[in-house]
């Protein structure tokens, strides 16, 4: 799995091409016939002629203002925010390595839901933080995951708060079944608590998180991970006294 900084852009380019193609089709249909247009309307209206609003010139002016303000936000950057985003990318990436073990390590269905969602959520957040850095013309860490090995920009990942040591990661990789669930929950709680600490440290820094997007990102990470910590503590309690239990078939395959 390679999360190169420019991957979202490539993906987006494909989407862009498709929508341009659609636009071309629309243009071609427009001068066509009344009958075609009526058919289109009968199912749902699409794209043209029905949305009232100000004229194009006024909207172009507002769009230019929108762009200028976006540029002004991205040129006014707090170093604490940059450090936070950069560090959190590594932090999140380790969660991907940990969660990626679930399907091959006998995780319970409930754990498969949890780990699938962690992978989905944190992959998106990594892309979001990479885009945040890219927009501000800062270095964008390149994340590479190969089995248990996590590399950031071709070197070892920096150890942020709560991240697992090599020994802890080996312990997780060696566990199976309910034991894997237990070790995973124990270490992911530690890992998440580290993220909560990183956010608290950010908010305690002068000048930090004044950028609305950075504030929202950091707050969302804190609140999501606090919620998930509670959920994991409950799951840990539930399996604490249970021997190797039945393994119902996976009802929620990972996306």
């Amino acid at each position, binding site marked *: 799995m390679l999360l190169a900084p420019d991957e979202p852009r490539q993906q987006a380019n494909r989407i862009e091409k498709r929508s341009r193609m659609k636009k071309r089709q629309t243009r071609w249909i427009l001068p066509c016939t009344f009958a075609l247009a009526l058919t289109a309307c009968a199912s749902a209206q*699409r794209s043209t002629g029905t949305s009232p609003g100000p004229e194009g010139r006024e909207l172009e002016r*507002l769009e230019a203002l929108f762009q200028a303000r976006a540029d002004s936000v991205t040129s006014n950057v707090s170093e604490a925010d940059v450090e936070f985003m950069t560090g959190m990318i590594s932090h999140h990436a380790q969660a991907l390595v940990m969660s990626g073990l679930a399907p091959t390590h006998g995780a319970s269905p409930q754990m498969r839901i949890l780990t699938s969602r962690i992978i989905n959520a944190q992959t*998106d957040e990594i892309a979001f933080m990479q885009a945040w850095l890219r927009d501000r013309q800062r270095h964008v860490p390149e994340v590479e995951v190969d089995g248990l090995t996590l590399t950031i920009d071709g070197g070892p990942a920096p150890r942020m708060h709560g991240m697992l040591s090599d020994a802890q990661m080996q312990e997780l990789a060696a566990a199976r079944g309910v034991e894997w669930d237990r070790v995973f929950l124990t270490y992911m709680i530690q890992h998440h608590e580290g993220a909560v600490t990183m956010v608290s440290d950010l908010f305690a820094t002068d000048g930090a998180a004044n950028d609305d997007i950075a504030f929202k990102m950091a707050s969302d990470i804190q609140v999501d991970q606090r919620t998930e910590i509670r959920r994991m503590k409950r799951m840990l309690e*539930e399996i604490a006294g249970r021997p190797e239990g039945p393994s119902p078939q996976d009802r929620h395959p990972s996306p």
Partner: protein
Amino acid sequence: MSDRSLSPTMLKLIRRLGPLALAAGVLVVSACSSSSGSFGAPPSPDPRIGLGAGLFDAEEAIWNLAWVSQSPPPESFVGSTNSDLAFLGDYAIQGNYNGVMFWDISDPARPTIAVEFVCPASQSDVSVYGNLLFVSGEGTSGRLDCGSEGVAEAVSHDRLRGIRIFDITDVQNPEYIANVQTCRGSHTHTVLKHPSDDDNVYIYVSGSSSVRPAEELEGCIAAGDDPSSALFRIEVIRVPLDSPEDAAIVSSPRIFQGLVEPESHGQAPGDIRMVEEARARGDFVSGVGEEARVMSRRFTQPQLLRIMRERGGTGSPTAADSAQLHEELPTLVEQLRGTPDDDVDPDAPRPGPTQCHDITVFPEIGLAAGACGGYGLLLDIRDPENPVRIDAVADANFSYWHSATFNNDGSKVLFTDEWGGGGGPKCRIDDPREWGADAIFTIENSSMVFHEYYKLSAPQTSVENCVAHNGSLIPIPGRDIMIQGWYQGGISLFDWTDPKNPHEIAFHDRGPVNAETQRPGGSWSVYWYNGVIVNSEISRGLDIFELTPSAHMSQNEIDAAKSVHLDYLNAQGQPLFVWPSSFALAGAYVDQLERSGALSENRIAMVRGALDDADGGSRSGLNDLASEVARWAGSSNDSAKVRMLADAVRDLAG
């Protein structure tokens, strides 16, 4: 057709293609506007897929709704996030991370800006009551003096995190009269007007961000194990209406204390189907009802081999061995589960989640629904200062309980899951439909019973943030209809009258703000207010739509919805809809009974004829008609609706 009804996209096309396109364009528009018949099936292929990007000129798809107007943000708010909406009289009040704006929507086709009030704070969640406006501040850059320079210091007495209170007696000149500072700021808030207390309103504050240092606000304690911690609670502010400047926190209820519910609720219909199919195949299923689980081969195969060996057999297990395993299964599962761990003290204090994201109060029924981190709560709010938890649900598919909406008779509640916090693209084709969705519950003897999920069906791109967000009921009598915002997934109108079969009946969607990278945008919240649907678009401004008749909704139903008038609306302070007597109301019930087939064609025709005769003519026969209709109730498969029709007809008789 005036120029105003041409979209920017259209204008660009006209400029490029010249008069030929203009002629064709006129035909397209007139064709669409005249073809307002009923089209039952959802459009296929879904026109929301592949819409072209743009800030103000994105491609759009619309079904069973009509545009009334779209208004870009005023200059002070361009490029800053539009957030939630409140309504007062002719005004739609739109929060923005840069302040608050008042739109005069007395002519919804031409909204005008009445007030642009710059006073930065995220998220600027807004509510109104009487002559008061309340605004939430959570972000660390909000200032007491409404300045735009932010707050550089981590500890500062210039910072506002909490509730700002404005006197808007003179709407043109809002007067900033008070603040109530809170430890975690106010992400959202809810105004509670108790039906029997006309002297005060209450504000439930939900703060989800970091606790402020005690040096900044006295008494704020972040440590979770401190009994005075600012976590694990909500704040209740009392606002005396004759002296709102004296508003203050009166209680900090710990409504989460002792929450022990596991991460589950009843199974979804899909899960139940899967178990039934497994049983039909002869697969091994443990447990019954809600507890039923399909057993994995990893478990059953070794057990079958053991049973075979115990009878001295070799090779493959036989049908008799399977029968034996079916018999032993309950005992085996019991053994495997074991007994609970003695180390876990079941009586140990459990502080529960640290916060709510949002609370919806429904004062007329004395209940509130709290969307609180990992839980959905049902609260008794008859004593506004001391809300009491009466039920809680959790769900392994729900990441983050975000907001709630009751149906009008309080027999159902719908919760949303804002998976990923609203910044993530959670409606891609491979994102599970149970994640980032709505969950529908019935309320039975004060307990919430799960039925089904509802999620926007149209897959969105990876550059469109999309997840369940804010919406409101539409007062269609006799049905539970809701309009909801899904960020860049657009808005979706759906029917959840049958809690097991929520389905979409109208939508609007734009393409992404930017085709290459995710930019903020989409519907923050969309609410019905006095006949129109008002959408707060994060980057594009204020959209207003109206319902159009279709196979899913008749003109009578729309007219009956429009007959409900509100003086103000805070969507999280849910009003009880009461329909005035009207021919549209009776007609709406007739249309529904015809649609469901609960009355025969003859009876439908008879009622319609009688109502038509009475509308504008003599109403003398309506009492007899009402009695006749009431007699049909017993033989109809929807007797409740037939009685509602009888009552509506009797009310018309006067």
